[in-house]
């Protein structure tokens, strides 16, 4: 047993303390309609004193576990306890939502308040800390990650959250939401697809040719240092000019604003992680391994397909994972130049000072990002197994 694992987990402890504190501020804001100020309600008033104390007790158990937890079982229990707290949070939300029904009229809604958000944040801090300690325990980590979202979706689909402000907003914008949601996914998929292909090719080029290496890295690095908004903006001007010169381009949708500049910007942002990881994936292959392949009579193509591709695949996929998770978030900005996607709700909400609408854009983006991340990690874990072990072995 190593000594380090006995030390208290500072991150988890701060999460627990924050969690306890978060029981006190107002939890829900009851509003008669979207834009009214509403009335703040504390947790004991909304859910009852007994349940509030129960959650307080759960936070205390988390505290003890983060202080003394020293094996995987205890770390797993810590993460699951945080999940249970999240489940309670959703129960409270659905209680508040259901209570509202009888008391007020149709467009009334429950908006989450400071206490609610703080508790969510604290629980995720604890979950994050617990998962970090669990390292390779992929199954239990996935259970911990997905329990809370699954329970949330369950409440959502059983109509227990029908008065939750975001759901009310969704009900109003249903058609538009589905359209923008699909559009968001398509934007991400298309840009990651082309970004990965171009990125991998550039990465291979950088590895193969010393001359190409610096220009390639220069371009990808520059693109990454320009703030996303600026890059989206920068593309408007040249694309407008081009599209005015060649009207046929306008007909296939290439204009100063819209999908074309958004996709170009997103693809450029995709490049850096993929190019970097492809390059280092290839560069980190032991020279003797390639030498042996050549020495046994493999052709260049065989060396590439049988040695370089499988050995660099985990790192390349890791680059694609970073690109896609980053892309899910970045695509929100695309709405600014008229490309649509979930960002549309965020910017509309910002413009109208309607927090519920902002959440209608944000929450699915977060879930989408988590989902993408999880799926990619599973794929990587599957392909990386042997090679990773090889690296561990070398380190010993």
């Amino acid at each position, binding site marked *: 047993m190593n000594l380090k694992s006995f030390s208290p987990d500072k991150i988890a402890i701060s999460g627990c303390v924050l969690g306890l504190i978060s029981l006190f501020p107002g939890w829900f804001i009851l509003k008669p309609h979207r834009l009214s100020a509403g009335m703040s309600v504390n947790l004991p008033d909304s859910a009852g004193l007994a349940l509030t104390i129960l959650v307080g007790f759960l936070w205390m158990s988390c505290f003890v576990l983060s202080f003394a937890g020293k094996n995987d079982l205890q770390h797993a229990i810590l993460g699951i306890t945080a999940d249970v707290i999240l489940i309670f949070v959703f129960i409270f939300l659905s209680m508040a939502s259901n209570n509202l029904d009888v008391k007020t009229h149709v467009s009334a809604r429950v908006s989450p308040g400071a206490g609610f958000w703080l508790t969510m944040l604290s629980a995720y801090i604890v979950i994050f800390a617990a998962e970090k300690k669990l390292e390779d325990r992929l199954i239990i980590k996935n259970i911990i990650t997905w329990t809370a979202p699954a329970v949330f979706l369950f409440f959502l689909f059983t109509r227990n959250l029908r008065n939750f402000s975001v759901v009310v907003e969704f009900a109003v914008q249903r058609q538009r939401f589905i359209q923008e949601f699909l559009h968001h996914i398509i934007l991400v998929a298309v840009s990651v697809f082309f970004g990965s292909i171009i990125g991998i090719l550039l990465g291979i080029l950088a590895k193969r040719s010393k001359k190409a290496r610096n220009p390639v890295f220069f371009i990808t690095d520059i693109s990454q240092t320009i703030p996303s908004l600026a890059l989206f903006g920068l593309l408007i001007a040249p694309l407008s000019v081009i599209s005015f010169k060649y009207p046929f381009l306008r007909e296939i949708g290439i204009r100063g604003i819209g999908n074309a500049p958004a996709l170009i910007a997103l693809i450029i942002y995709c490049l850096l992680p993929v190019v970097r990881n492809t390059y280092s994936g290839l560069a980190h292959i032991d020279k003797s391994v390639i030498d042996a392949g050549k020495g046994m009579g493999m052709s260049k193509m065989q060396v590439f397909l049988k040695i370089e591709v*499988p*050995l660099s695949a985990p790192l390349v996929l890791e680059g694609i994972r970073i690109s896609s998770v980053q892309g899910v978030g970045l695509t929100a900005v695309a709405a600014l130049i008229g490309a649509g996607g979930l960002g549309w709700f965020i910017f509309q909400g910002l413009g109208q000072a309607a927090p519920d609408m902002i959440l209608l854009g944000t929450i699915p983006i977060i879930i989408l990002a988590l989902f993408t991340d999880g799926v990619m990690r599973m794929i990587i874990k599957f392909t990386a197994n042997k090679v990773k072990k090889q690296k561990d072995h070398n380190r010993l």
Partner: protein
Amino acid sequence: MISLNKITKVYNDKAVVNNFSLEVDRGEMCVLIGPSGCGKTTTLRMINRMIEPTSGEIFIDSRDVKKIKPDLLRRSIGYAIQMVGLFPHMTVAANIAVVPQLLRWEKKKIKNRIDELLILVGLSPAEYSSKYPYQLSGGEAQRIGVARALAANPPILLMDEPFGAVDPLTRTKLQTQFLNIQKELHKTIILITHDLDEAIRMADRIAIMKDGELVQYDTPENILSRPYNQFVYKFVGTDRALKRLSRINISKFIKSAPSVDEDFSMDKVNQACEKCRWVWVTDSKHRLIGWIDRKILSQTTSIKEALVPVSLDEIAVTEGASLKEVLSIMLSSGLRTIPVTDKKGFLIGEIDMSIIERISAESINHYEKS
């Protein structure tokens, strides 16, 4: 037959291999040896075109290698690289199968070949086939590297320090095994080593290199007895006389040994002892069990009483031994004459220290060129 004709390789204006010529006959094992950085690996890699020489020509069976497509050339030559270079994402079996697969062997044939090779390098197929390289020790990985080079049964083998990372005991075992295969298959082999004992034991001829040049190319016996210059003289070391003995098999020097059966009468024993100072004693199956000294004979009444029992490990050598082993046993047992038996302990003859003295005197104690 491999023939290197005035090969030069220049790196950054420096010739790391310089005007190097070498001929290795078909079925012969040539061992390349020399100080680190003298150009051994570079020379070897020019043969399978991993490196192109700056000038000079290389022929394999009278064909200029430049005229053979590198990939095809390499598939017909077994090559074990110095750094081993197993494919980390493939099992041991898949690593060995690489060349047979390139040559499109049948699956079943490949599978059988893998098992055969694993046994040959002393690793159990059941245990090792499905292991990954990260699960192997350095020595095990090296043996898989050798198995991989042998996989497609190529007529030519290039081996760059194939046993560098295995322990001395395993190394000796592998050398023996390798020599046995060689006796059967007569491959043309160029093997690089840093271990002079290995070179002397394995080589038909040794090529000693220094600073990219060939210094001496000769049989181990001649290298040891007639070092060409001071460099070789120093390289083979002050124990070269001993090393030379290790190359010489005892079979030519075995004399018949006086022996008696343990059931013999005392008269017969006395008779046998008349001409010599002692006789070896064997049991009814002619297995060596001890000896009788003539001086003691007069004071005793039975063979049993006179017999000095021996342990075969301590005083006897077997037929295949070298003169070096004989000397070593003589020194540790204090005997000038020791018995030779076969593997089962049957007495074959004896061998005397005078032989060793005579052979050693043959080796000239100076080098030919100063």
